[in-house]
């Protein structure tokens, strides 16, 4: 008899220990300890300004781009220190991809949107290999059928939902291990949202996903783990089912049931 549940024996893909973020004097993220499990979708929820996006951006060092931002504590990817001075941030962001709130395809062809990353990372030896990566990524993003006859057309000409899936395909193309999503569906209609959610569920097989969302329903639908942030602190983290049926902390309870002042 194995008394330990299977999920607990999986190693944390990303581990945060006592992570703090300061924007100048403002203490935006306070002493966060959080394990992101491999091949799980982890949803980060909480009211605006709670620190969930700040935490997300710590994972691939997007906060480096913000002046005054200072990150302390430890963040590791498979045990490697993400904030190691020796680490190449461009390489790191190839391992930890990101999808943003608003679809932001490059003003280039659909093909080049996907091919851009593999090209700069030198992932393809010849045109055939590059074609393969592009097709594969579009296929995995569930977009191939819709665009295969117009790969030379501009990515910006696609519908909002298609653009977002193009951005997901672009993130997948460089074979990341973790994909960070910052409210990926907030600009999409319900059908496009459902397609992206279905995609997230499929991607889970090969990637570890962290998603920030303001839609509680979305967190409940797509994630296995949910973390609730409030005023820069991680209040509660648990299996999504438990968080949405029997949250342990009154703040979590108040937030997800719509009792928040």
């Amino acid at each position, binding site marked *: 008899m194995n008394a330990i549940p299977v999920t607990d024996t999986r190693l944390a893909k990303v581990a945060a220990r006592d992570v703090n973020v300061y924007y100048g004097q403002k203490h935006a993220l306070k002493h966060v300890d959080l394990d992101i499990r491999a091949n799980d979708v982890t949803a980060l929820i909480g009211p605006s300004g709670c620190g969930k996006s700040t935490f997300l951006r710590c994972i691939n060092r997007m906060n480096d781009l913000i002046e005054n931002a200072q990150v302390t504590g430890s963040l590791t990817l498979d045990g490697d220190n993400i904030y190691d001075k020796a680490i190449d941030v461009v390489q790191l962001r190839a391992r930890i991809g990101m999808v943003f709130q608003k679809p932001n395809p490059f003003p280039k062809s659909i093909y080049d949107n996907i091919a851009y990353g593999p090209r700069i990372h030198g992932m393809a030896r010849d045109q055939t290999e590059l074609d393969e990566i592009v097709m594969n990524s579009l296929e995995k993003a569930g977009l191939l059928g819709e665009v295969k006859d117009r790969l030379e057309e501009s990515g910006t000409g696609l519908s909002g939902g298609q653009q977002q899936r193009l951005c997901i395909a672009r993130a997948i193309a460089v074979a990341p291990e973790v994909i960070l999503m910052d409210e990926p569906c907030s600009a999409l209609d319900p059908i496009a949202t459902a397609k992206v959610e279905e995609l997230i569920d499929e991607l889970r097989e090969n990637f570890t996903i962290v998603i920030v969302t303001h839609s*509680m*329903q979305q967190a*409940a639908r797509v994630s296995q783990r949910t973390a609730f942030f409030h005023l820069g602190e991680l209040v509660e983290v648990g299996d999504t089912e438990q968080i*949405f*049926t*029997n*949250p342990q902390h009154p703040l*979590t*309870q*108040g937030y*997800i*049931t*719509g*009792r*928040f*002042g």
Partner: protein
Amino acid sequence: MSDHTVKSYDEELAHLTNIIARMGGMAEAQFAAALQALSKRDSDLAARVVAGDTRVDELEHEVQQFTVRLLALRQPVASDLRHIVAALKISSELERVADYAANVAKRSLVLNHMPPVKPVSAVLHLAHLVQEILKDILDAYIERDVDKAVRVWNRDEEVDDMYTGLFRELITYMMEDPRTITACTHLMFMAKNIERIGDHATNIAETLHFLVVGTPIKGERPKGNTVDTE
């Protein structure tokens, strides 16, 4: 707990508690009237209890419609979800309680055509214990009192023990005077119905615990003697 940002949601949840409270009160009243019909040999009252069962059914239907509406429109989670699911479950328990009360009333109509038999008082004795338990669990629901719910849950053993004793008493009575067999058989079914009402009160206690705490009541419920089946 503090209020929802959307006030109409609070009103809807309060309305749901309200219907359950009304339904509970109605089931209690039906049960009390059935017992009075039995003890006073009042056939008019018994007939009113039988007819009144449809009102409880209507309330159960109302709870069903209202909970489905809340689930569809509010997409409740956490304590709100448990509140709504609990209301749905408790309404079916109360509907069953009222059914058993109606059945007791029906049998008392039959008994009124026969000479009175002595064990009626023992059946009423069991019924009063169950009435107390039913009242306690309905109060506990209104007050969201988990401790009281657990006490009700533990009292089911008393009901089972008393029922077993009553069963033996009725058999003895029938053996002593076979002319009472028909009347005592009806009493035996009544006792069974009353014992079942106690079981439904226990079920409500379990649901109430889930509603308030979010987990099932821990541990095995103490079980009283079971009826000899030979």
